[in-house]
């Protein structure tokens, strides 16, 4: 079976989340991705989580997850010979991904103009916090600061306290995904006879273009001159997160066209006769809201979260339960669909990973290969480049590989 991205050769000079996620997506669906790591390895090898919390560079959950199906070599780009090797590797690549600070590609003499001379198909994608231009180009950014500046963070959380960031590394995953999309688009153009390009992906800008919350509310700001703000919990009747007997649910019923079914379900069909029934949720009187909420919370107090969801879904009501990762991994829905994939790593051993995102009728995803041990392919890559095996001890001694 042909994989969608077979035959695309990718070099990844990127660390942590964004660049490696861009590369992982390409690798998982068939591209050949060579990860070029500093001699100490991608810092995500040190991040964890680790089995039993014992740090080990080949057992970091973050690294193992983000680097499936890749090869690894080590290369010191601070050494002149390291840069010579890097430039030769780029000469054989279709795609290069980096997350160097702006200007470093120039310092390394690896900038797009030079690398694409005589190699017009080349696609390079550079991921930076703020982009390759503009007054903040050289500023540093991290997950929380880029969400705060570019993304919808201001509107998340409770109004009486500080805004809350989105979970984990969401902004960097999103930016990596955006980079991977741009790479595929450029490659599609190259294979149709067009040219490659240098892709400039700013995490900040990806956050500003983060649909839904940010692009909708930036448009609303242009229309109304107002910003959306953090909303008080429980502010709207039968809308939003509420406690159930064994956790929380998030159900959108109040003011919707399925609200009658909801009232039946919570045992208050009489509230359909109220004059506020059929109004928009923010127009309900305080008294109507109290009637609804009292009965709703009492119903939830006797109803497990997933049962509450199942019973409201029957009426076409939007909703979901607030689950933990433990709930998720054990949930029969995803397990039955084969979402998890067990991958056997030579050092970390067999573990369950998030597997395919896509079910493809003509090009199913192949079983994954584990993330590479640090430098596992250094020798193979260099001998393919024409280095004599006898030269390798010298490169090693000189701190090049």
């Amino acid at each position, binding site marked *: 079976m042909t994989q969608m991205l077979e035959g695309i050769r990718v070099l990844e000079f990127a660390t942590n989340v964004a660049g490696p996620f861009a590369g992982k997506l390409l690798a998982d669906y068939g591209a050949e991705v060579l990860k070029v790591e500093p001699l100490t390895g991608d810092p995500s090898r040190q991040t964890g989580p680790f089995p039993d919390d014992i740090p080990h560079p080949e057992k970091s959950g973050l690294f193992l997850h983000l680097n499936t199906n890749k090869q690894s070599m080590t290369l010191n780009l601070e050494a002149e010979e390291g840069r010579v090797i890097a430039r030769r590797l780029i000469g054989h690549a279709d795609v290069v991904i980096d997350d160097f600070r702006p200007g470093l590609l120039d310092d390394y003499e690896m900038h797009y103009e030079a690398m694409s001379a005589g190699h017009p198909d080349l696609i390079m994608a550079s991921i930076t916090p703020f982009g390759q231009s503009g007054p903040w180009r050289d500023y540093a950014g991290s997950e929380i600061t880029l969400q705060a500046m570019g993304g919808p963070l201001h509107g998340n959380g409770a109004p009486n306290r500080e805004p809350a960031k989105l979970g984990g590394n969401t902004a960097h995953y999103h930016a990596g*995904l955006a980079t991977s999309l741009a790479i595929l688009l450029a490659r599609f153009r190259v294979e149709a006879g067009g040219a490659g390009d240098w*892709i400039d992906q700013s995490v900040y800008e990806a956050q500003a273009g983060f649909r839904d919350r940010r692009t909708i509310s930036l448009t*609303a*700001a242009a229309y109304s001159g107002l910003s959306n703000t953090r909303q008080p919990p429980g502010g709207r009747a039968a809308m939003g997160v509420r406690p159930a007997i064994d956790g929380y649910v998030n159900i959108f019923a109040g003011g919707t066209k399925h609200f009658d079914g909801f009232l039946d379900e919570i045992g208050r069909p009489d509230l359909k006769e109220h004059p506020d029934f059929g109004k928009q949720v923010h127009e309900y009187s305080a008294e109507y809201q109290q009637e609804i909420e009292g009965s709703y919370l009492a119903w939830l107090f006797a109803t497990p979260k997933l049962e509450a969801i199942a019973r409201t879904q029957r009426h076409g009501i939007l909703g979901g339960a607030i689950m933990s990762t433990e709930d998720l991994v054990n949930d029969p829905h995803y397990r039955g*669909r084969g979402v998890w994939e067990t991958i056997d790593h030579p050092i970390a051993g067999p573990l369950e990973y998030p597997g395919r995102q896509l079910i493809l009728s003509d090009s199913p995803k192949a079983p994954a290969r584990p993330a590479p041990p640090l430098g596992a392919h250094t020798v193979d890559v260099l001998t393919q480049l024409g280095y004599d095996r006898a030269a390798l001890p010298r490169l090693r001694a000189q701190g090049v590989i």
Partner: protein
Amino acid sequence: MTSDARPERDAAHRLPLEGIRVADITVVWAGPHVTQLLGEWGADIVRVEPVTTIQPYSRGAERISTEAQYRYMGSTGVTMGIPPDFDPGKDPWNRSPAFNSHARNKRSMACDIRLPEGREAFFRLIEQCDVIVENNVPETIERAKITYEILREVNPRLIMLRMPAYGLSGPYKNYRGFGTHVEGMIGHHLIRTYDDGTPDETGDAYTADAIAGVMGAWAVTAALRHRARTGHGQQIEMPLAESFLPVIGEYIMDYTMNRRATGQQGNRHPARAPHGIYPTTGADQWIAIDVASDEEFGALCGVLGAHALATDERFRTAGGRVEQRTALDAALGEVTRGFDKEELFHALQAVGVVAGPVHNDVEATRSPQLEARGFFEELTMEGVGTHRYPGIFTKWANTPNWIRTPPVKLGEHNQEIYVDLLGYSQEEYDALCARGLVGTTYTPEVLRGRD
């Protein structure tokens, strides 16, 4: 970027999806984001929208509010449905920020697929499309009899992206959910809950739509590449929930490695402190600060003039700061409270401390960095007005790109699509319009049925 300033694109640097046509039957938010991205990079997006019924949560047409009601919503900070100048106008379905924020570079044809006349037009469109994107509940597509098995008989080279919330199989198959509900079901909501709070405080974020939108466009582009090499179209099944799982991959791995469910994290980082959102001068003004080393902590205290913090024995090491972070956050917040967030941002960046002001929507539209990069673009919708819209979030050095057409109005391209593209005669087209099946406004019956 104004039209007279637009640089040339040569043939080698044309937009990559020029010549690709996409049938867009998406609703709400995530699906339209897929076609937004495909359209931005050159595809011809044909939005198929009924005027004989209102698609909920899409054009904001099912509920028409008055100016007073929109002003009330604005006063409570719920802005996402507010039309320009709070004025719903005669055609509120062309004035929704939720819709107009994605609807650039799209064409719209009025067509109700569930009616025989609509099905005929839709199938003619499918014959001329490379891709169809949908994000309905699976039973809706099955009931409409427009599954991939049926559509590929019409066009064997078709690529069909289906993006239900949870999948085309399994117990949750027909569960209805927005991005925010999916985030709850897969664990993201709990992770972003304040570490010292409860899940009802964190509200709705709609992150899953942002991820699924880009991933959907990724999947379509990959499938187009596969088709160019093999000649084969295919169905892509991409549930919102499953497209989001990699984004919390490290937390899933913590469970599969250690059988440890990730707790509520809020703004905290497992290994770094200070790491959070701190108050600055003014109401609801904040700065994000993220310190990764002792040097950065020293530099932070230096800029803040916080000698007591810098010399506090509890905060001397990274381990101590993480362990004592509640005390540290409280002490730091007392100091940052006296600073302007923008001035502090630049002062901290100057000494290598990672910091950034929390920008609300209006502030974000005034960012000098986004301005310098030309992110926002001014677009004019006739009768709706001229406004600045968020632009294209990736820059290509040699392929200048901009929004080609403003947000599409309901049925704006009926004539050119029915007659020029689908081959209807003018008489046939006029008859469809006369019967109310095609138009640029919802039918009187539909409009009367609104709340």
